[in-house]
């Protein structure tokens, strides 16, 4: 659907050339909600702007539906842009126009008949739940409502792709959640592929199925959201995952007497999906002659699948501990020993 092939982008300032993107290879499949996460300056804004040529790649290609955008003639490009909707962090609505006219504008631009515009806009406002605000002006709306209008406007021309540029970064947590659910609904009901960029890992967790982590103009890690959350490989990905999933032993627990020996054996166990409901700990304690104490535990949901993190300290005979470890592995859990002091 969207394909980045060896894309670089550099900006010329007066004194130097800034390389915003240093060779991006990325594929967004049809039906994906693809999230790109990174700190500011990582190049993600530039990346998303390449998809509708708000920025042109310096080298490499961006393909949309198999077509390289830069090869299109201006007229073809304008037609292609109508298939790509975009929403923005600061909404970018026209303050001088009513909600109705704001949503209608992409249709007006393509010369749609008035009657058609009216039905389409009413349908869209209904979909985003703001049918009663048609005659209001943007500044009479809250941030969340403005973004809904932005979404309605982006959907007006029936796009197959929706680009979300930090769409929830200016919203409070509750509004963010509502807007994200709306995006999910769009993805499912209208079969619209979504590419979003954000600096909040919680956004990725809530709606994305795939994620790419960016740093310094490169994609340093990518994969299914589940894989990246379950076992992040790069340091930056780990940092991002940590912002939403706490898998560290709390400092208070560490300093407390909870850890008995000087060289404690500590395991980190990841539960995935249905396995999280199995009574693992009690089974081990019954089967083997070991003592278990829980240092840290939490369960979160990624992609509608429960995902648990358990950190336990094990004491007992070395052989029994070994057997228990093997048992956990054989049962299909991801288990690893954690070294406290490196």
């Amino acid at each position: 659907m969207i394909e980045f092939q060896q894309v670089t982008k550099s900006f010329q300032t007066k004194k130097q050339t800034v390389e915003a993107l240093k060779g991006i290879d990325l594929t967004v499949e049809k039906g994906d909600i693809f999230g790109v996460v990174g700190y500011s300056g990582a190049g993600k804004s530039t990346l998303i702007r390449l998809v509708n040529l708000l920025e042109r790649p310096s080298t490499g290609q961006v393909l949309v539906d198999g077509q390289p955008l830069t090869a299109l003639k201006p007229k073809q490009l304008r037609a292609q842009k109508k298939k790509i909707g975009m929403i923005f962090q600061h909404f970018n609505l026209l303050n001088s126009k009513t909600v109705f006219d704001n949503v209608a504008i992409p249709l007006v631009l393509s010369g749609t008949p008035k009657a058609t515009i009216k039905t389409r806009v009413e349908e869209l406002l209904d979909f985003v739940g703001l049918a009663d605000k048609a005659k209001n002006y943007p500044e009479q709306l809250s941030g969340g409502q403005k973004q809904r209008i932005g979404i309605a406007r982006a959907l007006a021309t029936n796009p197959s792709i929706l680009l979300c540029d930090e769409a929830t970064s200016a919203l409070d947590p509750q509004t963010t959640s509502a807007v994200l659910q709306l995006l999910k609904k769009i993805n499912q009901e209208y079969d619209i592929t979504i590419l979003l960029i954000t600096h909040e890992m919680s956004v990725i967790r809530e709606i994305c199925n795939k994620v790419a982590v960016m740093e310094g103009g490169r994609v340093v890690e990518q994969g299914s959201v589940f894989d990246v959350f379950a076992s992040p490989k790069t340091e930056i990905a780990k940092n991002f995952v940590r912002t939403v999933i706490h898998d560290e032993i709390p400092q208070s627990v560490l300093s407390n007497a909870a850890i008995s020996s000087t060289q404690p054996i500590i395991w980190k166990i990841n539960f995935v999906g249905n396995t999280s409901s199995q009574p693992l700990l009690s089974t081990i304690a019954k089967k083997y002659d070991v003592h278990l104490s829980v240092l840290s535990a939490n369960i979160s949901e990624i992609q509608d699948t429960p995902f648990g993190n358990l950190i336990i300290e094990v004491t007992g005979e070395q052989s029994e501990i070994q057997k228990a470890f093997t048992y956990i592995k054989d049962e299909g859990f991801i288990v690893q020993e954690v070294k406290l002091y490196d």
Partner: protein
Amino acid sequence: MTDTLWGMEITTEQLLVGFGDTLYMVAISLIFSALIGLPLGILLVITRKGHILDNKWIFNILNPIINILRSVPFIILLVAIIPLTRLIVGTAIGTNAAIVPLVFYAAPYIARLVENSLLEVDKGIIEAAQSMGATVPQIIFKFLIPEGLSSLILTFTTATIGLVGASAMAGAVGAGGVGDLALTYGYQRFDTMTMVVTVAALVIIVQLLQSTGNMVSKKIRRR
């Protein structure tokens, strides 16, 4: 001198004709300078770096020309372009002849003010327009101008008031108007009453223009 008012040396009729001349000069030169200044102002915005028609040639030529025209004092401009005025209206004296230098004075002024107004429009709006696949004319007329309209109204209010002031100086080429009465009767003939009445008339004109402009602008801005 039977038809005088409050002991003025000028007749009421003279005053009314002066009023009419001022309005005529201001209105006609406003129309022409807007027709020239508005497109130039838009051009100054859209040809600058990173904007929708990024073109350093046009921008770097237009920008200093406007600056130069803006630096020439109106009274000098009035005299300097007399040959051109004669070419356009056939005479260098009278109300119509004053319109040419007034346009030369106001058009670059309007271009600069329009530029400022349109630069206030949030870049994000332009980005949104581009993301929708809007053409350059569509971006100008459906996004840039509607979003900058409230500010543009104030711009044209300022320009109109500037023209009222400049038209008073056009008396130097026998243009007539309220300002001319103030100069020739009030100032040069020491007719204080005429001076007071004509200046008061100018004050009222300016006040009316400004408050109308403010009102319309506010209504459009809806804030």
